[in-house]
């Protein structure tokens, strides 16, 4: 883990209050979600907003976890760890970051989908989400491909970045921003 990266997140987004780097398991995700619940309770966050924070956090963490698991099964050489960071700034905007290593093949699959999501309006996202949920009937995929729509629907904005690690591998960094204060 690069400490400079963490530092730049602190500079940009303020306080980091939850960070984990390594192998993700379901028990860890549940424990961290519990910590987020305490945070929401302490700062008296609106229930709808905090549900969005929990869902996005779970979705991103389980993505990283499931991706590692598949890769461990299929090819031993990919390191299966990920990085999850939750931070907030002075205006009480929350940021959920996830980072893991993915293959070039998967980058080419994910990137156009993410770009399409970013270019869509909230209404279009909701429509697409429901279409995908409907059309995915009988599919036994882990999330039916609607995970990033779920995240985008509940975020105020999303960002992503791929950084080349070697010819075939990339760091995939994803950021979701959630506002907790309504603008006047």
């Amino acid at each position, binding site marked *: 883990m690069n400490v400079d990266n963490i530092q730049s997140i602190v500079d940009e987004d303020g306080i980091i209050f939850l960070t984990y780097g390594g192998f993700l398991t*379901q028990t860890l995700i549940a424990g961290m979600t519990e910590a987020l619940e305490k945070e929401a309770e302490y700062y008296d966050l609106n*229930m709808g907003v905090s549900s969005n924070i929990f869902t996005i956090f*779970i*979705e991103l963490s389980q993505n990283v976890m499931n991706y590692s698991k598949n890769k461990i099964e299929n090819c031993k050489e990919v390191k299966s760890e990920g990085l999850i960071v939750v931070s907030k700034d002075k205006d009480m905007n929350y940021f959920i970051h996830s980072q893991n290593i993915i293959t070039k093949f998967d980058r080419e699959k994910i990137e156009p989908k993410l770009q399409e999501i970013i270019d869509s309006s909230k209404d279009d996202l909701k429509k697409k989400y429901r279409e995908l949920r409907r059309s995915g009937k009988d599919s036994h995929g882990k999330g039916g491909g609607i995970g990033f*729509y779920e995240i985008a629907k509940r975020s105020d904005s999303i960002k992503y970045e791929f950084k080349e690690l070697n010819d075939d591998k990339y760091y995939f960094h994803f950021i979701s921003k959630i506002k907790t204060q309504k603008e006047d």
Partner: protein
Amino acid sequence: MENLTIEETKYTPSINLNVERGTVDIIGKSYPENTFEFYEPVMQWLEDYFNGNAQKKTVLNFEIIYFNSSSSKLLFDLFDLLEEMREENLIEINWIYDSENESALEAGEDFKEDFEDLNIHLVSK
């Protein structure tokens, strides 16, 4: 046919499926590691129940605080099954949400719109 009870965990809801009363209660959070495996017995129970074991009226109560996208997918499949059973069975669905939890309300509204033929009540508490 037996009743089915699954205890609540940190990431799965409490589940109570009762043949004699004709009730289904799913209450809590839902983000299992493998959603379709986790809910398999529930889907199986519902199929068996509606296949000759159903009461005159069946009431399903869902009170799910938050859930991951694969649970959302699973719930969709579950409602789909209910829609198939609707013609021969009297089915009532309560989607229960905390009045302050807009996200849970919105999820309920989406299901109501997607399953217009089902009798889904949005119940604020």
